[in-house]
């Protein structure tokens, strides 16, 4: 295992030290492993927190700041944070208007946030609402299973709903918007290689040189299918088709993210976006806004994912609103 780390056990603490050193507009609670805005938002505004296992950077810590999250709780690599972290963050960020918990749909994340919500309500009386994102079309949806994973839409949702909270909408309205955004987005991912979890010390799975995984999430888990390696054009089709088959995106504008898994260089991500854009155009999807880059990653995995979000004037306006975070920044 070749990594820029001191020791597998120290990865999270050491990385948080780097975040604190790099960003004077953030404050890091090392004991609880929470990243806050250094300047909290105004009283009476709904606060947003998210959290999850580490290894997906910039998600979530890179999205803390004006116009997006108020705090992010960091778990160990690929392991959801614990309820006490979310409870603490909830208490600290609450400005009297309640707190939205943004949770990616994974059993661990859901259960830990659930316990956090119970504790926060019981102990401090903070009103908590929860949105569980579940946009990954690689997973067959069913009430009998863990359901779809939360992936790329989480990034777009944190931006859009963060802007709405900054505007001063109340918790009910913020939650409703979050539900609308989550319901309007779909994602699909693929991997050329596995990633290596520092504590495991070796790649999570072996992938022969001539194969790729289609339908991977963001935890280095094997995908839904293993298929022969193909060209970018064919890969794009394998990502875009299941997304378009799952939801109609032709009725209005869309926001599209071509996301890198962490180990693929930007030149390849742009190349992939070119292929995706061609397919979307052919399918009658009008792309109004675009993100290309590493936004929700899986450590050093090579690969990418596509997220398409149905937008409307409200969503586009919120998308364009100022945001000042390590991972997304514009308008200010």
């Amino acid at each position, binding site marked *: 295992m070749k990594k820029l780390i001191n020791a597998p056990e120290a990865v999270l603490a050491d990385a948080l030290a780097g975040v604190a050193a790099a960003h004077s507009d953030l404050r890091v609670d090392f004991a609880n492993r929470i990243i806050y805005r250094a300047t909290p938002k105004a009283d009476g505004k709904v606060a947003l927190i998210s959290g999850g296992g580490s290894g997906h950077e910039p998600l979530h810590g890179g999205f803390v700041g004006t116009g997006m999250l108020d705090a992010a709780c960091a778990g*160990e690599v690929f392991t959801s944070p614990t309820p006490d972290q979310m409870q603490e963050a909830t208490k600290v960020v609450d400005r009297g208007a309640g707190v939205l918990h943004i949770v990616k749909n994974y059993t661990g994340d859901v259960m830990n946030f659930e316990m956090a919500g119970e504790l926060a309500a019981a102990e401090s009386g903070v009103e908590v609402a929860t949105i569980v994102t579940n946009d990954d079309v690689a997973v067959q949806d069913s009430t009998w299973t863990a359901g779809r994973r939360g992936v790329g839409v989480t990034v777009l949702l944190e931006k859009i709903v963060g802007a709405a909270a900054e505007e001063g909408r109340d918790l009910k309205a913020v939650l409703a918007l979050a539900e609308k955004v989550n319901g309007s987005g779909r994602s699909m991912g693929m991997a050329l290689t596995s990633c290596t979890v520092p504590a495991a010390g070796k790649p999570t799975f072996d992938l022969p040189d001539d194969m790729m995984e289609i339908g991977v999430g963001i935890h280095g888990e094997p995908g839904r299918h293993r298929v022969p390696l193909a060209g970018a054009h064919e890969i794009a089709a394998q990502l875009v088709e299941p997304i378009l088959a799952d939801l109609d995106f032709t009725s209005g504008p869309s926001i599209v993210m071509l996301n890198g898994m962490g180990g693929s260089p930007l030149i390849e991500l742009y190349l992939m976006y070119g292929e995706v854009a061609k397919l979307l155009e052919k399918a009658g999807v009008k792309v109004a806004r675009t993100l290309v880059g590493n936004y929700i990653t899986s450590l050093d995995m090579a690969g990418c994912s596509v997220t398409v979000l149905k937008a409307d004037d409200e969503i586009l306006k919120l998308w364009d609103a100022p945001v000042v975070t390590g991972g997304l920044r514009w308008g200010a």
Partner: protein
Amino acid sequence: MNGTIGLDSLVTWLDAFRTAVTEQRAYLTELDSAIGDADHGANMARGMAAVMEKLETSTPSTADELFKSVGMTLVTSVGGASGPLYGTFFLRMGMTAGAVAEFDGAALAAALRAGLDGIVARGKAEAGDKTMFDALAPALDAFDAALAGGTPIPAAAGVAADAAEAGRDATEPLVARKGRASYLGERSAGHLDPGSASSALLMRTLADVLGSS
């Protein structure tokens, strides 16, 4: 050992479980690599290390204090799916045990059963979903049946551990319906569930500790 189990035996059990998950850490992570995210060994080892560290500084005098402390420590140190699940298991064990300093067989069985119910309440797992439930449920059924048939506690715990291991092995052909492995669909078949493997260790260490004390 006679018909009762003292707090010290319970602590010995927890310590043995710590040792087991620490020694089997790579194996548990290996299982989780195949159908999950390669952290189950690290999660369990980290959690049980925290538990034993906590117990060194504060020595509970009743079973409810002990298990509440174990449960909270797991909840606040593990994360992932196994943190809340094992955490809830011990929290519920403690609630059911009450402020006692020793268990008889029936009380231990009731506490374990309450723990399992807690796992189900949290995670909604059913039999055959390919989770830790598939090791724990048959184990507790076997424990109850053995005790009801008059088997002494140590032997009953051995029967329970055998059942847990059989349950763990039976997860291999299953297609997962809960947890991370469910994302793999049919590809999850052909692999042991990592949580059922750690649960089998939990039951085996219990049998070992009760049998040897």
